[in-house]
């Protein structure tokens, strides 16, 4: 059923009795042209664009849990394209463009809200770095505006401008950035892919790979073997665990990132604000809770829960930025597992094993990348060549030295 004003009206009159499940709960068939491992945003977007753009409909997405149970439901919903490096910025700007048309494309309300993201700067050197980044964004076709203190004060008068250690001097604003409803994004992609014939198989965990000769020709799962022309991994957080079953060692460490939401408030923050002197970012959900987070915990973890030192650090960052949140109570906090790559940038490439494709290493920036990641991964799978805006995300860049290190901290994943 196509969602529209008329479908809402009709269901309003008949007691909401005509709604159908948004996608079929498919059982796995014995074989597919493409099997995508991982039913998160990236895997579902890949399946959707394979069917929509490349005409490959005989596709299965297999997910070990249920749709929305992993990082798709754990992120902090921010979408943006404010990167510096040429390997990154065109990719994220393409993602931003796809976000702008996503709801019409999917016929699903993903609550994309271009409310703007403001990165604050606190020193002359930081202002210069932000001016450079803003210029790099504009060169790649994105929007950016460098604000001074007066302009920032007009937007957010309650920030601690005269903080003794980190006075706010201004900020870099991307107007077109914002937020999206994270689980509606996976639901929307799942429904749209299902409509195009993609099988979404939940509660189906990969336990191994089928091989013939040196090639991978399918997967062993908890729901039986599934043969596939091509197998594509989109399992960020667990990439090393799944790739290990194919005999691969990846340039990735898994780390836990915590996020927080406060009790609901009346509207107080109408955009996304990031603190420039520590790692803290905050926005307000449409339900009223302040959604915020900071650094990863900094040690290898698959636990999906973190420890208290980082919670304290995040709270301190928040208090340094806007002291008025000091009396707020936390409603919830949670952890998700990040694929921290060795240069802080992702990998979209063919694996060194024939028949296997790799989408991994998203660090804590995977949500905003969802549409372009699916778009570029589908392109790679369908045509066996990288998409133009994802050409730098090669697995062998660590060997060749063509790293994409936005922060310039080297092969130390917990610092990215």
């Amino acid at each position: 059923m196509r969602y529209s004003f008329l479908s809402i009206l009709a269901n309003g009159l008949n007691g909401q009795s005509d709604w159908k499940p948004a996608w079929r709960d498919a059982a796995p068939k014995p074989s597919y042209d493409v099997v995508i491992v991982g039913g998160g945003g990236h895997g579902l977007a890949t399946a959707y664009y394979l069917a929509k753009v490349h005409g490959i409909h005989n596709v299965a997405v297999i997910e070990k849990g249920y749709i929305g149970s992993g990082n798709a439901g754990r992120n902090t919903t921010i979408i943006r394209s404010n990167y510096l490096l040429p390997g990154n910025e065109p990719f994220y700007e393409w993602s931003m463009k796809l976000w702008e048309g996503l709801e019409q494309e999917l016929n699903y309300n993903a609550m994309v809200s271009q409310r703007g993201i403001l990165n604050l700067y606190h020193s002359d050197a930081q202002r210069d770095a932000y001016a450079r980044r803003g210029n790099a964004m504009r060169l790649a076709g994105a929007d950016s505006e460098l604000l001074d203190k007066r302009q920032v004060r007009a937007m957010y008068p309650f920030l601690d401008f005269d903080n003794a250690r980190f006075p706010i001097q201004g900020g870099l604003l991307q107007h077109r950035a914002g937020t999206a409803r994270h689980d509606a994004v996976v639901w929307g992609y799942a429904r749209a892919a299902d409509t195009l014939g993609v099988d979404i198989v939940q509660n189906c965990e990969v336990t191994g790979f089928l091989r013939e000769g040196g090639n991978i020709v399918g997967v062993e799962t908890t729901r039986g073997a599934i043969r596939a022309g091509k197998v594509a991994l989109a399992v960020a957080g667990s990439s090393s665990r799944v790739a290990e079953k194919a005999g691969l060692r990846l340039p990735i460490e898994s780390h836990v990132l915590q996020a927080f939401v406060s009790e609901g408030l009346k509207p107080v923050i109408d955009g996304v604000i990031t603190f420039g002197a520590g790692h803290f970012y905050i926005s307000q959900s449409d339900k009223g809770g302040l959604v915020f987070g900071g650094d990863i915990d900094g040690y290898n973890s698959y636990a999906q829960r973190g420890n208290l030192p980082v919670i304290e650090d995040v709270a301190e960052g928040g208090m340094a930025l806007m002291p008025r949140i000091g009396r707020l109570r936390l409603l919830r906090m949670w952890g998700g597992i990040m694929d921290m790559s060795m240069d802080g940038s992702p990998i979209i490439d063919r694996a060194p094993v024939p028949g296997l494709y790799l989408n991994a290493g998203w660090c804590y920036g995977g949500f905003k990348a969802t549409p372009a990641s699916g778009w570029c991964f589908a392109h790679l799978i369908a045509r066996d060549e990288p998409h133009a805006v994802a050409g730098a995300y090669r697995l062998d860049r660590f060997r060749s030295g063509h790293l994409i290190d936005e922060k310039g901290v080297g092969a130390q994943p917990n610092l990215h």
Partner: protein
Amino acid sequence: MRIPCPYCGERDAHEFSYLGDATLVRPDPAAVDAQDSALADRFHDYVYLRDNPAGAHREWWYHANGCRQWVRVTRDTRNHAIAGASLAREPGDAA
């Protein structure tokens, strides 16, 4: 999370900083001809590739706000339970 420093006793993880996998062994440049691509491969593997296990993980922690010694800790990455710790200068197993 508390880390049982062999010198200071059990201390909060706040006092430590993390370096990562303690099982990696730096390749010996003298062991292979420096022009040999095998040496570059070994350094690539050493610098960039990780086992990243879900389970027991042997890792380096530096007790910066304590005895300032490097500690080799064995920790389960699925639940953060620590099985053992030894000083880096002492050879042998941590667990």
